[in-house]
């Protein structure tokens, strides 16, 4: 009771304000999606005139880039606000928009959340502001993930093509000479590790991480989520989806992988002391591991994620995000100006790369200097080459649901419960799918 009471208390005045806001805000921008109007003069004027901008992100990788922007635009004052991580931020954003107060001008939006935010009209189309032509400055996959229903709602920023971080020492002690290139070799390596080092496992699978399993299914060729307009399909029974789920159920049943939530203190320590030998994750993780497990400098190496078919390597993305201008921003022109400069200016991108962000922009991915950078933490390895190659192999055709934030939040109820207890992940996934279909119907989608 107490919970909802405070919630409603805070929502009540907001509703009145929201009504007012929609009342007076409906004029102005009527250049619909697709109209490639050149509004650069308007944007430039806003940048010269200056003002204040609020940018929401929970990542710490953007302070340098924002400082660079402020240096180049002395009239503009940008404040970075951490409004919570992922789902917490999206809730805060929805609350801000419906109350009409404290609406950020720009916010970081993960690719999986973009359809939901776009559908609920929280984001401003970049095409409306003439930024649609910037498409070829970003990777194909990242641009597509900023697009919903044919309209692009922001600019991509970072991506997470799958890679495998492994502990070289554990591999050596288990007699594994080369990191596994295919999932078949990975399972063999898992057996070796368990045999030689009974207290270690090749990896842990996180019962709470929907994005992790999604990316493995994506890589395996499964496409459980599809949407077009208001119709949605959720189907986990596809052959390629089941192949991935059964593979991991099998490893779990044979006690070759651990079932443990990621990012906890216990998990980091397991990774640090070699109890877990690998971490298959998005390319952004290099910065996270090197800043968290500082005592392990030199222990880890980066390899391409294992693939299903060595002859036709397919990759997928785990995480990744862009930045969007938020509906209700006080100064949309200025926000667009910031977004463009922040996303593409060389100084800004360099600051982001230095902070360990893995770019969605095409330019650095082809920059020889960036590619040949040697990482001390990874024993001098030119890790960016591995990441860039992975980025180029991301398979097409993956979609998230227009209610993926919800979908991820209930992942652990069905799939996570199976992972924890060593049950059938496929059975869990089908139950998850059932729940997502009925939710879709309740929410007014045409569920196929």
């Amino acid at each position, binding site marked *: 009771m107490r919970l909802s009471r405070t919630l409603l208390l805070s929502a009540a005045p907001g509703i009145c304000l929201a009504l007012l806001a929609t009342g007076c805000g409906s004029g102005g921008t009527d250049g619909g999606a697709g109209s490639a109007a050149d509004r650069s003069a308007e944007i430039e004027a806003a940048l010269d005139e200056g003002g204040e901008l609020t940018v929401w992100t929970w990542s710490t990788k953007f302070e340098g880039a924002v400082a660079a922007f402020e240096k180049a635009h002395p009239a503009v004052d940008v404040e970075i606000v951490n409004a919570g991580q992922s789902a917490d931020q999206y809730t805060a954003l929805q609350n801000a928009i419906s109350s009409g107060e404290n609406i950020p001008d720009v916010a970081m939006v993960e690719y999986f959340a973009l359809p939901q935010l776009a559908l609920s009209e929280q984001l401003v189309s970049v095409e409306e502001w003439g930024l649609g032509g910037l498409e070829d400055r970003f990777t194909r996959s990242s641009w597509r993930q900023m697009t919903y229903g044919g309209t692009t709602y922001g600019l991509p920023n970072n991506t997470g093509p799958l890679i495998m971080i492994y502990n070289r020492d554990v591999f050596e002690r288990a007699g594994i000479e080369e990191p596994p290139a295919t999932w078949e070799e990975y399972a063999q390596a898992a057996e070796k590790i368990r045999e030689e080092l009974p207290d270690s496992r090749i990896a842990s699978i996180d019962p709470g991480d929907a994005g992790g399993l999604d990316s493995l299914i994506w890589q395996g060729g499964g496409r459980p989520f599809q949407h077009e307009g208001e119709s949605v399909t959720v189907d986990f029974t596809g052959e390629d989806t089941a192949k991935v789920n059964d593979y991991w159920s099998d490893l779990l049943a044979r006690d070759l992988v651990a079932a443990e939530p990621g990012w906890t203190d*216990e998990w980091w320590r397991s990774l640090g002391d070699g109890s877990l030998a690998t971490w298959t994750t998005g390319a952004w993780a290099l910065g996270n591991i090197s800043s968290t497990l500082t005592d392990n400098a030199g222990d880890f190496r980066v390899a391409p994620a294992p693939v299903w078919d060595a002859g036709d390597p397919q990759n997928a993305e785990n995480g990744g995000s862009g930045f969007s201008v938020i509906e209700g921003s006080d100064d949309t022109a200025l926000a667009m100006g910031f977004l463009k400069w922040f996303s593409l200016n060389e100084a800004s991108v360099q600051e982001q790369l230095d902070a360990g962000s893995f770019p969605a922009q095409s330019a650095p991915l082809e920059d020889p200097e960036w590619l040949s950078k040697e990482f001390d933490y990874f024993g001098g390895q030119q890790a960016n080459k591995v990441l860039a190659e992975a980025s180029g192999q991301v398979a097409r055709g993956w979609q998230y649901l227009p209610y993926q934030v919800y979908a991820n939040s209930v992942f*652990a109820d069905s799939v996570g419960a199976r992972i*924890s207890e060593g049950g059938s992940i496929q059975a869990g996934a089908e139950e998850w799918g059932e729940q997502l279909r009925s939710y879709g119907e309740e929410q*007014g989608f045409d569920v196929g």
Partner: protein
Amino acid sequence: MGAVSTTAAAPRRPARNWTGLVFVAPFLLVFGCGVVAPLAYAAGLSLYRDQLIGGRSFVGLENYADVATDPQFLDGVGRVALFLVVQVPIMIGLALLVALVLDSGRVRGMRFMRLGIFMPYAVPSVVAALMWGFIYGDRFGLVGQINAATGLALPSPLSQTWVLPAIGNVVTWEFVGYNMLILYAALRAIPEELYEAAAIDGAGEIRKALSVKLPALRPALWVATLFSIIGSFQLFNEPNVLKTLAPGSISTHFTPNMYAYQLAFNANQVTYSAAVAVVLGLITIVVAYAAQRMTARQESR
């Protein structure tokens, strides 16, 4: 109405004095705005339905019909009911035992013990849950260390089977001291003459505890139990914190409050969440009232 009758009646009828209202007004205002209005707003909200496509529409009592048959809501209610009948008696029993021991005056370092047992209540429940989460860890936590040192294979307290008792343990640890203090205060209020009379009748410490202290503790026990019943139905912080450590064991509908939170913040269903909250409030009132009737009947016997 004749002018004559009004003038004639006016002096006789005791004039209604509105001055009192002025003094009560600040309270009424705060009560109205702070308690009545939000409740009414929640109840009103629960008559609508939110959809990602279609927006908000009036659905009458449909949400309530859904709540009554919602397996996830019932699952949570069943779990906290089980929690209630197992954890609350254990906790109140422990608190009673400690209060009686302290009151007997036969232990050394009484003040230290009293403070020590009360201390966990001063720890915020989020911190307490985090702390116990570390202890429960079966790799690096205390449980893992016990297993490693003794060769035992204690099951993980955060597995699906053990997670509810594990949460019960955290809640008991947090609230034994608080309940002990309520009971101890009531014990201190028992007049000395009763003990004297009992002593003259030849009663020992145990007899005094059973025949003098326990009957005098009834009202305090009732207060402690009532708070614990409400606390059980509102169970939220402990499972919600432990969920990050055990996402596969603690579902989003583990307790009704967690379910209401999930509906409002992750499922875009604030209105349905309001219906869940209203129903949960009603269930709590009914259970608390039933518990009161039971104790009242016992007392009249």
